């Protein structure tokens, strides 16, 4: 049995005096897709931010069997990469510059190689490479955020609500791209409100409610669980 790529044990996060994550444990294997689902305010985004090191947390975060480095930048260098809910693009810079900066920690030759791969994967971005990121549509911005993240050649991609605010057709496109990424060997920790779609492409699922893991298991099992469907996925849909 190969070891886990990411192993979270008893993660607590507090904002001031209010604790929002009360001891979350989670494990994921290399190259797998794990989705964290749950209602708004359950602590899903907080969990991703804690894994990336954007916010401080207590508990153990093991990455590839060893404790993850302290700073965000060192975690990027180690192969983690977060695509945040708000994308955090460099809006007054060109698409090309945004993509190039994604490979800030890579060598020039690696950057050139990965960039061409990404332009092949996202032809829309190749067309708009000279355009400012701030002028892109919602779907294009999400693609750019993904492309920028992939430039760092991550082993673990943390995706926060990639479908948020996008039209249904584009959501399907984005989730297709996400499930295709798995073929390149990158593991994906996916936070989604659109639980049904997320469970469809994931291997494992975690249901988080009020800062605690309520259910976990193979995604296929969670997707057909009648009680879960009832309360979180909307029984009639």
């Amino acid at each position, binding site marked *: 049995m190969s070891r886990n790529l990411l192993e979270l044990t008893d993660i607590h996060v507090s904002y001031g005096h209010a604790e929002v994550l009360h001891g979350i444990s989670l494990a994921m294997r290399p190259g797998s897709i794990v989705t964290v689902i749950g209602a708004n305010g359950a602590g899903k985004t907080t969990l991703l931010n804690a894994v990336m090191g954007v916010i401080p947390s207590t508990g153990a975060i093991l990455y590839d069997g060893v404790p993850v480095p302290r700073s965000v930048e060192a975690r990027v260098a180690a192969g983690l990469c977060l695509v945040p809910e708000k994308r955090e693009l460099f*809006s007054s810079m060109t698409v090309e*510059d945004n993509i*190039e*900066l994604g490979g800030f920690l890579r060598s020039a030759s690696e950057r050139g190689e990965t960039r061409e791969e990404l332009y092949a994967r996202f032809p829309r971005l190749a067309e708009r490479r000279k355009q400012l990121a701030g002028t892109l549509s919602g779907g294009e911005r999400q693609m750019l955020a993904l492309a920028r993240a992939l430039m760092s050649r991550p082993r673990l991609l943390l995706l926060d609500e990639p479908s948020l605010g996008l039209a249904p057709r584009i959501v399907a496109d984005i989730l297709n791209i996400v499930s295709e990424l798995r073929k390149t060997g990158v593991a994906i920790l996916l936070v989604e409100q659109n639980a049904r779609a997320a469970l469809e492409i994931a291997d494992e699922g975690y249901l988080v409610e009020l800062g605690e893991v309520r259910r976990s298991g193979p995604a296929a099992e969670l997707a057909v669980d009648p009680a879960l469907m009832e309360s979180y996925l909307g029984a009639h849909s």
Partner: protein
Amino acid sequence: MHLDATIATFLIQDGLTNGAVYALLGLAIVLVFSVTRVIFIPQGEFVAYGALTLATLDAGNVPGTPKLLLCFGVAAFLLDLWSWRRDLKVDALARNFALNLGLPLLIYGAVLYLAPLQLPSVIRALMTVLIIAPMGLYVYRIAYRPLADASVLVLLITSVGVHLAMLGLGLIFFGPEGLRATPLHDGSFTMGPLLVTAQSVLIYLTTILIMVALYFFFEKTLLGKALRATAVNRLGARLVGVRTQLTGVTAFVLAATIAAVSGVLMGPITTIYYDTGFLIGLKGFVAAILGGMGSFPVTAIAAIGVGMVESFASFFASNYKEIIVFGLIVPVLIWLSIDAVHHEEE
């Protein structure tokens, strides 16, 4: 005395010369602010250190600044040691030793050896910039890096503190007397009715050269783009692996270099005292505010305007020269605040 064409052209030339230096200083202020959110008040001290160092070297003496640089380096080294007290890494320690102690020692030794040799003025100017530029590195490490996540107000108060400290150090290391450096080139030529000195041509050329170099740095290099990215979106920059320290240090070293060059350019055209730099830096600050603390081109153009206004004000109302120049920012601030309210309502 009435304003005639000859005097007007003379004033314009004077305004343009000073304006070019203010443009450099304004650009440095915008650069530091957009990348680190620090209002770079101690910039004036870097200008004064530059001018005074050049003047001392011109006289064939060893200036106090290399010694001061060494003190800064030692302080930075000790701070790093303190921050690593829990986990000390040998390779990081060696690198740190070279950067914080090796570099200033090397510069100090070189200055001790070269200062009495009466080298050409260009070499003295380069030596001056080489002494002052690393100060940006150490000042950032000592005063600002520990506060990288602090609010703009805390950083502003820090800047006032650094300004006062460097002002006092300037008095200790240079004394209260004013010094004037010798021009890099003594010549001058006439262009129609205008007498143009070689020094003012040098100022124009250097300003243009630095602006072009900055343009290439920000548009063409990955580090330059990382600085822009940090200015646009700090979290986004961290998420692609750009360290806040790296961009902060780069911004400060660039700003210190620009300030040192400005000092070298200003030194031969005015007598500089240890506390003259502050007022010169403030003119650059006025230009930066006119540029909304964010626009490089507007800042550069505004700086030329500041130089012109100052030059003509010194002819028409020399007692009110500074008041008129600093009064320029009041309408701009009112306009910017109206604009800001307008945006909030949208």
